[in-house]
């Protein structure tokens, strides 16, 4: 039984001081803006009559025709109740279906790349994409909640969001991105923000109407997929179904930027891999053994193919599928979200340590029932019951200290969650809501591992039923036809051994009040959460929105959130990764000023935020605090088209500035976190996302998107960072890069043809390594660091063709 853990007073005090100082500064800036001290370009002030006309009913026709539709999208993401983006108590961005179509986004990872406020890394390995929101570095995408129709998709065990090619995009109506902690609404783990994928709702269709959309995808590297959306309504019944199937061989290693530890010859090096996986000679028979000849019998036969290809050479196959379905009958809704990704490791790991061509799997299922009903008058009740499972695991081919193993891994987890939400609107101006939540989770403590080092994972040695006794880990020079690399036995993917089970029960309750008065809107909420194994946590949020004119709005919001240590960080260690059952929850406090100004040709959005984090978890330790402040500027523009009979040219320009500092840095020589305030690392201070959309007459459309990311220091665990590695003289940063993508669309009647070119300028670049990123850049020596310190990216143009039919 774990003991309750308290937040250290010192860290709380530091965080409080930081937030207080920043609060003062932000209030001064905000008061100046409100007082008119800073002129707002294009902003309309009060009308001539002195009446501020900021709600739709009182706006003039001229003002109404200047309103950006995106500000009036109804969203539940920020508050759990329906409100427009304009009124939401947070900085939000909506990417709608038309933008998804025009930009050629065929997966969520494409979409994430173009968002402000994210440092996105195509890791193409254990995780396909790793995104750090708001300047907060974590091993994977673990501090941002990924939702599909409001239901959490992050893995139950490691809290990561697997953002790959699995989700059907043709069923997506819009993606809502919320920046800033939202613990007061979501409880645990809405730490940095929320990405909510909202799918189509055919209950809005006319009775008897049905629709279908099907896309076929062909691309380089033998990439192919289908993406299908169906929906319809008959009386009180309606349904929406989305299906995505995607396979790819992925880019060959020669198509990536050069990096010494992704030299393909390393994969068959007999000194590292022995005969069997590597190329060598069987010491028993004296026969040559080719790469991938696991039984060292002199030939790599079909039954030695592990995941479409032989080991000892580069391959990185991908196979994804995803299904999203909802059926509604009156007030009832039944939903299913199921997906699975099987992917190789690409250039994620050093080829001296790991073979990329074995499969790593993420799998998630959830089934839910929602019921919304009006109880009486202005009182409504929303109920939901969710059952979900999430799994991560696969094969792992490793060379560590010249010892070779081929092991299988699995972590299976499940949960039940029930939530009741009551909303009471005594008047048009006032809305109260409140609710309770209960969640029961059955979680794995350790990976269940076969054929790995003794004591690793839930093996026979510590009470489990697997076979990691260490006997299958073989020195490379002792692998022979009589003592070959051992292929691991299959693991039951959907079970947890009793000895490896960790039960957690979460309770939560919240209240929220929203008060509209004239041009002001105040939103306040507070949430209490208790996990059976942790302290209880109270997360408040207070926000004030002021529509100073029909064109200009200001918001100020203060919010808190907490991030539970994941079971992986608490218990999931082995000889390759630490865990610590004494970890404290991370805390986030965020203060933010926001302004939106709708000028005639441009809509400006500006967020200025300061955030303080404490009990930061890195390397299975609480390593002090971090402070981040930043600016996110978002603008959309619309200018006349120079082409005749063509709609206006539109586009967006996002600029993100982020300053992220950490109280402690990892010392690569001692392996200890030292008190040293310096840049957190892996966070680019400057990021620019620029998109231009050019309609060409009625049926054609061209879209070009450019993402420029500045130089960035690396994370302190990365041995390439000299100030955290006494053994290194020369610092190495991740250099800036410019990636340009283009998408050309032809649409006529019920057909759509899309042609996408990614990396149009053939930019060669490397991105910061993820997790410990510890392999270094001395390619003459193998430090067994596993994750590449810099991850090569595809340097070639990548072409994809889409053919879509709508009915």
């Amino acid at each position, binding site marked *: 039984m774990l003991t309750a853990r308290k937040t250290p007073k010192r860290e709380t005090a530091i965080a409080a001081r930081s937030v207080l100082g920043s609060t003062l500064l932000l209030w001064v800036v905000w008061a100046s803006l409100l007082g008119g001290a800073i002129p707002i370009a294009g902003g309309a002030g009060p009308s001539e009559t002195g009446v501020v006309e900021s709600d*739709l*009913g009182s*706006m*003039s*026709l*001229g003002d*109404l*025709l*200047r*309103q*950006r*539709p*995106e500000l*009036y*999208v*109804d969203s539940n993401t920020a508050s759990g109740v329906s409100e*427009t983006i304009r009124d939401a108590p947070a900085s939000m961005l909506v990417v*709608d*279906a*038309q933008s998804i*179509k025009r930009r050629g986004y065929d997966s969520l990872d494409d979409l994430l790349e173009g968002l402000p406020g994210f440092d996105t890394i195509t890791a193409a390995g254990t995780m396909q994409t790793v995104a750090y929101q708001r300047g907060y570095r974590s091993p994977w995408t673990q501090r941002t909640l990924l939702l599909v129709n409001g239901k959490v998709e992050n893995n139950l065990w490691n809290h990561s969001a697997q953002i790959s090619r699995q989700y059907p995009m043709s069923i997506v109506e819009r993606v809502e991105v919320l920046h800033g902690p939202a613990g007061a609404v979501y409880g645990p783990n809405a730490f940095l923000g929320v990405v909510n994928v909202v799918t189509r709702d055919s209950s*809005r269709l*006319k*009775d008897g*109407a049905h629709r279908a959309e*099907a*896309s*076929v995808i*062909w691309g380089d590297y033998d990439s*192919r*997929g*289908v993406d299908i959306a169906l929906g319809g309504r008959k009386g009180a019944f309606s349904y929406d179904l989305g299906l995505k*199937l995607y*396979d790819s061989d992925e880019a060959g290693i020669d198509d990536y930027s050069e990096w010494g530890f992704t030299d393909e010859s390393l994969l068959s090096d007999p000194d590292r891999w022995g005969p069997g996986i590597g190329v060598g000679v069987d010491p028993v028979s004296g026969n040559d053994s080719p790469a991938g000849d696991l039984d060292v019998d002199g030939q790599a036969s079909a039954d030695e193919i592990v995941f479409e290809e032989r080991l000892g050479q580069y391959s990185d196959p991908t*196979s994804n*599928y995803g299904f999203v379905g909802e059926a509604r009958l009156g007030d009832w809704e039944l939903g299913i979200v199921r997906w699975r990704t099987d992917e190789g490791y690409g250039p994620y790991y050093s080829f001296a340590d790991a073979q990329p061509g074995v499969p790593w799997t993420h799998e998630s299922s959830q089934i839910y029932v929602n019921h919304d009903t009006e109880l009486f008058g202005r009182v409504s009740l929303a109920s939901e019951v969710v059952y979900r499972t999430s799994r991560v695991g696969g094969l792992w081919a490793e060379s560590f200290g010249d010892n070779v193993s081929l092991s299988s891994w699995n972590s299976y987890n499940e949960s039940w969650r029930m939530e009741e939400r009551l909303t009471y609107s005594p008047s048009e101006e006032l809305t109260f809501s409140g609710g309770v939540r209960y969640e029961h989770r059955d979680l794995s403590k350790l990976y269940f591992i076969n054929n790995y080092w003794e004591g690793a994972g839930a093996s026979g040695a510590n009470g489990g039923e697997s076979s990691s006794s260490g006997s299958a880990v073989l020195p490379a020079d002792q692998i022979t036809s009589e003592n070959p690399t051992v292929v691991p036995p299959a693991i039951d993917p959907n079970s947890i051994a009793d000895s490896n089970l960790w039960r957690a029960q979460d309770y939560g309750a919240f209240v929220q009040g929203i008060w509209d008065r004239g041009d002001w809107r105040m939103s306040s909420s507070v949430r209490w959460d208790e996990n059976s194994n942790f302290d209880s946590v109270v997360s408040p949020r207070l926000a004030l929105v002021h529509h100073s004119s029909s064109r200009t709005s200001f918001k100020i919001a203060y919010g808190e959130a907490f991030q539970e240590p994941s079971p992986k960080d608490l218990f999931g260690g082995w000889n390759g990764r630490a865990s610590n059952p004494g970890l404290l929850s991370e805390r986030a406090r965020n203060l933010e000023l926001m302004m939106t100004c709708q000028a005639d040709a441009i809509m400006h959005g500006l967020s200025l935020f300061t955030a303080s984090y404490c009990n930061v978890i890195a390397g299975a330790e609480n390593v002090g605090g971090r402070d981040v402040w930043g600016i996110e500027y978002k603008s*959309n523009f*619309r200018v006349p088209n120079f082409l005749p009979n063509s*709609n*206006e040219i*539109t586009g967006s320009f996002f600029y993100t500035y982020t300053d992220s500092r950490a109280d402690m840095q990892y010392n690569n020589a001692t392996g200890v976190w030292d008190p040293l305030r310096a840049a957190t690392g892996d966070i680019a201070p400057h990021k620019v996302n620029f998109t231009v959309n050019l*309609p060409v007459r009625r049926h054609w459309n061209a879209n070009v998107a450019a993402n420029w990311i500045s130089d960035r220091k690396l994370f302190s665990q990365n041995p390439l960072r000299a100030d955290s590695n006494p053994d290194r003289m020369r610092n190495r940063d991740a250099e800036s890069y410019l990636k340009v993508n283009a998408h050309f669309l032809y*649409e006529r*009647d*019920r*057909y759509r043809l899309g042609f996408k070119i990614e990396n149009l300028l053939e930019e060669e670049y490397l991105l910061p390594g993820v997790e410990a990123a510890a392999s270094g850049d001395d390619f003459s020596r193998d430090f067994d660091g596993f994750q590449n310190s810099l991850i090569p990216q595809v340097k070639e143009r990548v072409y994809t063709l889409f*053919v879509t*039919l*709508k*009915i």
Partner: protein
Amino acid sequence: MSVFRLNVLALLLAVFCAVPFGKASDSAALPADLTAAILVKLLELELNVRKSQEIRIHVVDNFQLAEGLQKMVGARSGSARLTQVSFGEALPENGTDVLFFSSGENLESLVDYTRQKGVLSVTNDRWLVESGATLAIYNDEGLPGILLNHESSRREGRKWRPEILEVAEVYGE
């Protein structure tokens, strides 16, 4: 999913794509509340509506818009006041001043109805204006846009104040 199965699915879809179908519309619609507010303001520019005391709007196939308009019941449009918002596929037997539809389904009969009864036809799809509806309030590349079909307007007996030309693009002049 094996390569074979994917290829078969791709082939099936390709064959499917080869079958000809009619026209589909895929423009992003304006949010309902914004459309409703613009519609009520636009009615001030139509003299027949402006003269009347009460405005009735019937929405054929867009429940969200009907809800948005319902919130505006009581709002003034010139000397007139929005008094009634109804929703349903059946066309109102007791008449209406404005008929709103989003889909091109049964467009011909809807247009016949509006022209016979002198009802203003309004849609949120600009392409339906080219097919006979009088007024579209639509998402014009990130801003509200208004398109007016001159011929349909005439056949419905509409009389617009000149200010309409300052806010609407005219089709069919």
